[in-house]
């Protein structure tokens, strides 16, 4: 394997700042990014990536091939939680297995955005429609996770036995679907994509100065993510060994499936194949844990967030991206 690829990725500014954030927690520094600023960075990154994707779509157009790719994206996001659930069920109760499985079925937008920065540094092109793929992959896992919980939940539950609180415990599908498909991230991403598509060259020309600071904002955001990831990692106490193993092996397994699909079924170029692979290998640490906490209150976010933010996210941005890129060329 080309070790230079991993080294150059680790030595890129965004990843180094991620390490700096982690270091800040380990040495008990008071370094902190204000909460509102951190939220602004994430909104900026989603808006920028969505707008850019829409602009690319404006130039390259839509085809049946793109529809097929987006369908596979949607299917992968629905299938990953299924097999993840049965593996997790060996160690966790139904609620936590469903919540962690949903986390793995969904995606991490920042991992996707870091991959775009990796591709742009290597001057590798990618299709704007992959942004639509990302938006499509955010939500199905929530629905699958809730269905899995409902199907497998323990019928012996004391509250059920007593016949109390049934209405409280029944899933509120309207709220779940609304959270899944209209949460802020998905709405902004899809909205920016459509606006980029509608405004075309004129819109992009006006937006370009805003896009020029993309890498700087990403770097700042990863510094903040490093701080938060290190804090969450410290809270990973129960089942830490299993979750660390699962948090590394499951993304690798998902990535291998994605690479085979990208190379042998979809015929994607190397840029799109890498983005598709990273989407399937990443795990959500914002939208899905919150949605699953509401839909399945018995699940414990002390499992979902540390594994997705403290293990899967660092693994993907440090080792995963260059490793998947290498595997795309040999498989």
């Amino acid at each position, binding site marked *: 394997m080309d070790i230079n690829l991993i080294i150059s990725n680790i030595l890129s500014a965004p990843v180094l700042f991620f390490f700096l954030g982690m270091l800040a927690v380990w040495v008990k520094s008071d370094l*902190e990014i204000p*909460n509102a600023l*951190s939220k602004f960075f*994430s909104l900026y990154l989603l808006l920028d990536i969505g707008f850019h994707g829409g602009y690319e779509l404006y130039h390259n157009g839509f085809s049946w091939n793109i529809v097929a790719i987006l369908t596979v994206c949607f299917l992968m996001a629905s299938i990953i939680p299924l097999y993840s659930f049965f593996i997790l069920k060996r160690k966790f109760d139904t609620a936590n297995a469903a919540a962690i499985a949903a986390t793995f079925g969904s995606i991490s937008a920042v991992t996707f955005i870091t991959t775009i920065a990796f591709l742009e540094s290597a001057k590798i092109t990618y299709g704007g429609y992959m942004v639509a793929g990302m938006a499509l992959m955010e939500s199905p896992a929530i629905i699958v996770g809730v269905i899995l919980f409902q199907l497998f939940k323990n019928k012996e539950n004391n*509250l059920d036995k007593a016949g109390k*609180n049934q209405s*409280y415990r029944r899933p509120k599908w309207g*709220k779940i679907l609304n959270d899944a498909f209209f949460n802020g991230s998905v709405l902004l991403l899809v909205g920016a994509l459509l606006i980029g598509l509608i405004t075309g060259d004129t819109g992009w020309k006006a937006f370009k100065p805003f896009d020029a600071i993309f890498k700087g904002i990403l770097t700042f955001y990863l510094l903040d*993510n490093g*701080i*938060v990831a290190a*804090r*969450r990692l410290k*809270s990973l106490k129960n089942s830490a060994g299993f979750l660390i193993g699962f948090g590394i092996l499951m993304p690798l397994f998902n990535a291998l499936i994605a690479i085979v699909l990208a190379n042998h079924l979809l015929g994607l170029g190397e840029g799109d194949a890498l983005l598709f692979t990273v989407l399937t290998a990443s795990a959500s*640490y*914002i939208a899905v*844990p*919150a949605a699953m*906490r*509401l839909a399945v*209150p*018995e699940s414990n*976010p*002390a499992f*979902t*967030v540390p594994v997705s*933010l403290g293990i899967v996210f660092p693994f993907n941005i440090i080792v995963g991206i260059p490793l998947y890129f290498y595997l795309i060329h040999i498989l």
Partner: protein
Amino acid sequence: MNFEPRKKVEIIVEAVKLDTLIYQLEEIGVPGFTVVGNISGKGANGVLDHNCKAKVFENTYLFTVCTEAQAQQVLEYVEEILQYFSGACFVSDVAALVPQKATP
């Protein structure tokens, strides 16, 4: 000055549950409530850190001043929530100032 006896219900609850709590308060018909978001602290469920990106580790403080009957309904609902979500609830007797309406 004119005071009326009221119940003050103070609720600390996970931020993800705030929307449904507010919906329920409006259904009960409390005259109003105040929300303080993004709070940190430590309770039986460990440290809650408002700086984590995931909303699941964020707490919210809400208080409402209402009649005894309304407070009873609020407490019943909050008791139900706190079976699954971390948080706390306190109730106290307060005197609410009823301002004299200005005459034109």
